[in-house]
């Protein structure tokens, strides 16, 4: 038992913090949010160059040989800086998904592109009419002589405009689940950005009878579902680590503001109504971080961790909703303005609570895992 960061993790943390301090200030975050793609392409490219995006892939395929727990340290730093990158989609979902399916030439190829950090691969799971990523898709995969054709539309696809490959969940005519790797530039694929409050750019993606080769079908049936779950679990934990970073930023901003703002002749941080709210934010943020770390470690060990992933998400959802409002309370009106940085983090934290499995969905997964 050792809950201190490892040397590697400290190195990742310090390196990422330095790098982001140099390359991403809050005004740049605002520019990125207003841009068409909604992504900080340069930071992503530099992270790729530094080997960070491939950090958690096995070294035998050219990855960094580290674990999800290490990647979470990086994700927390991205959260602290409100950086929008496809880390969760690519190094989280795609990497875990591709490692969970039956290896083929196609999956090996995709994994080596991830290891070489030269592809953004993003999940396209939730159908336009469905509730979330785990709802059975109505988008259809039909086999053809040349391979297969897919038709349908997906919502909430992260980073679609900068992706090279989409991992699309589909239903076959006989009701089986399937996941297909679709070239984002294939004929028939079109996308439009959603209006959304969080940090990740989300897209509505249409598949108008898109033809794919037979080997693009990466998984079918229960195996497809298991691989999706593996991908979502990794993405959930990584996203929670990012959200922990957002909370750290909320605490930092709140503590600074409360240490300087005076009312009634006293610094407001000396009022318990303010100080204790910040203390509670500290407590819950620490709790979230430790849950993330333990869960990532379990996943790195190859253990069954549905209970831990789902439970961590349920806890994070509950406490982060409170923290968002606590942070605004500490700041008063200034925190509501777009000129001030708080909203960059509170919008992300609130969107996080709705994403990656909401409380209902994760509660049910955890309850089953608990034996209930």
């Amino acid at each position, binding site marked *: 038992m050792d809950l201190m960061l490892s040397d590697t993790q400290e190195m990742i943390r310090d390196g990422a913090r330095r790098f982001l301090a140099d390359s991403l200030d809050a005004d740049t975050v605002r520019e990125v949010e207003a841009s068409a793609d909604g992504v900080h392409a340069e930071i992503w490219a530099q992270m790729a160059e530094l080997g960070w995006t491939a950090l958690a892939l096995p070294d035998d395929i050219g990855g960094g040989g580290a674990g999800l727990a290490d990647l979470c340290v990086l994700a927390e730093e991205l959260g602290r800086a409100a950086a929008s990158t496809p880390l969760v989609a690519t190094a989280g979902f795609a990497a875990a998904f591709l490692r969970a399916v039956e290896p083929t030439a196609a999956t090996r190829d995709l994994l080596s592109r991830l290891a070489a950090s030269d592809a953004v691969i993003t999940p396209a799971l*939730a159908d*336009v*009419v*469905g*509730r*979330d*990523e785990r*709802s*059975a898709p*109505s988008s259809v995969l039909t086999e053809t002589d040349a391979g297969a054709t897919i038709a349908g539309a997906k*919502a*909430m696809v992260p980073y679609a405009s900068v992706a090279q490959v989409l991992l699309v969940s589909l239903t076959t005519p006989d009701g089986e689940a399937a996941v297909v790797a679709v070239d984002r530039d294939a004929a028939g694929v079109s996308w439009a950005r*959603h*209006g*959304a*409050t*969080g940090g990740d750019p*989300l897209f*509505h993606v249409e598949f108008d009878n898109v033809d794919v080769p037979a080997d693009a079908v990466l998984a079918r049936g229960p195996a497809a579902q298991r691989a999706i779950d593996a991908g979502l679990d990794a993405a959930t934990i990584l996203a929670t680590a990012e959200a922990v970073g957002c909370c750290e930023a909320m605490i930092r901003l709140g503590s600074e503001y409360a240490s300087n703002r*005076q*009312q*009634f*002749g006293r610094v407001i941080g000396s*009022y318990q*109504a*303010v100080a204790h709210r910040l203390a509670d934010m500290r407590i819950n943020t620490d709790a979230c971080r430790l849950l993330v770390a333990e869960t990532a470690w379990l996943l790195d060990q190859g253990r069954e961790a549905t209970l831990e992933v789902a439970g961590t998400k349920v806890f994070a959802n509950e406490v982060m*909703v409170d923290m968002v*409002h606590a942070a*605004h*309370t500490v700041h*008063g*009106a200034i925190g*509501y*303005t*777009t*000129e001030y940085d708080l*909203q960059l983090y*509170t*919008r992300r934290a*609130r*969107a996080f*609570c*709705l*994403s990656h499995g*909401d*409380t*209902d969905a994760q509660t049910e997964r955890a309850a089953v895992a608990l034996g209930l």
Partner: protein
Amino acid sequence: MEFEFPAEAERFRAELRAFMDAELPEWWKGLFHDDDRIYPFTREFCMKLAERDWLTMSWPVEHGGVDADVWSQMVVREEMWAAGEPRGPQYMSLNYIGPMLMEFGTADQQERFLKPMAAGEVMWCQGFSEPEAGSDLAALSTKATDADGCFLVNGQKIWTSYATAADWCLLLCRTDPGERKHQGLSMLLVDMNTPGITVRPIDSMGGPKEFNEVFFDDVEVPYDCLVGPRGDGWRVAMSTLAHERVGAALHARVKVLLDALIEYAITTKDENGQPLAMRPSVRSGLVRLQARYRAARLLCYRIVSAMAAGDANDVDPAVSKVFSSELNILIGNIGLDMVGARGQLTTGDGCAPLDGLMNDHWVHSIPQPIAMGTNEIQRNIIAQRGLGLPR
């Protein structure tokens, strides 16, 4: 005790609703949205209310009102707030700026300012808060000094809603030295077209139109625009703020959202054809909200009942404000969880449940515990004045 509105108030509500259904345009979503049509529309809407004697109905007849009973006034507050306050800034004139003038203004001031308010022709804004004077309002430093036959105002106000559209500003500033910080303040009526006034909008999470900074640089304000005794502005302001707090029917918006969520839960089915209403979290969430809505409504009505009985106090409005503003936060969060992942999509996005209503409400609910006296200040009031605890 009696838990129903008087029959005539309910008749009036039906009439008012019919009027609003007819008058509110399709595009109207509430006051704080990014749309240039909003302020012109509110002015037009208020003039129509005024034509029907509904704008300042609570005022005495002599000032252009119809001496309406308190429950009809409550009907107005509820229906307007439920609809996103289509009166725009003018709710301030009729709820508290007008009554303040009736209490503290000279006959000339009443003649000059109340008429246009009653006609719905004028928009006011409130210049109280400053960067260094938020909860601690009395710490304000905007100064009005004596010049040639007028005040010369210098300083800065902040969080001034409606300042871009307003014709006049109710300005609390410092005219005289005082031993304690709430002495030496005065209340001025300032024409927003006076040279030297600069308005800088502050973009907010709720959109680009919600707040402003207002800078005063040698702004000349005639002496006859001083309301109440010079140096006694704190008392005028406190009386004004007391009126402000009574005016809030924050529960009315909750009712609109609750009805929308209930309907959404009943009519929305998951892929198994099961309505959302069968989800346990939805059932318990809506039940919790419904009970709290009832409580918020009753806590608000208690203030009015006490006023009607001549038994008003400072604590009940504080209780009501904390409860209702926190309920607005709660319904935003429960509502977002109910509609699920797509709740983060914004109004206008084709995939946004309820066209982004819950997300829109969530954002606009954030400042509610902060506005109109933070909930921390309200809790201080409850503890000190209600429970007798020491400062």
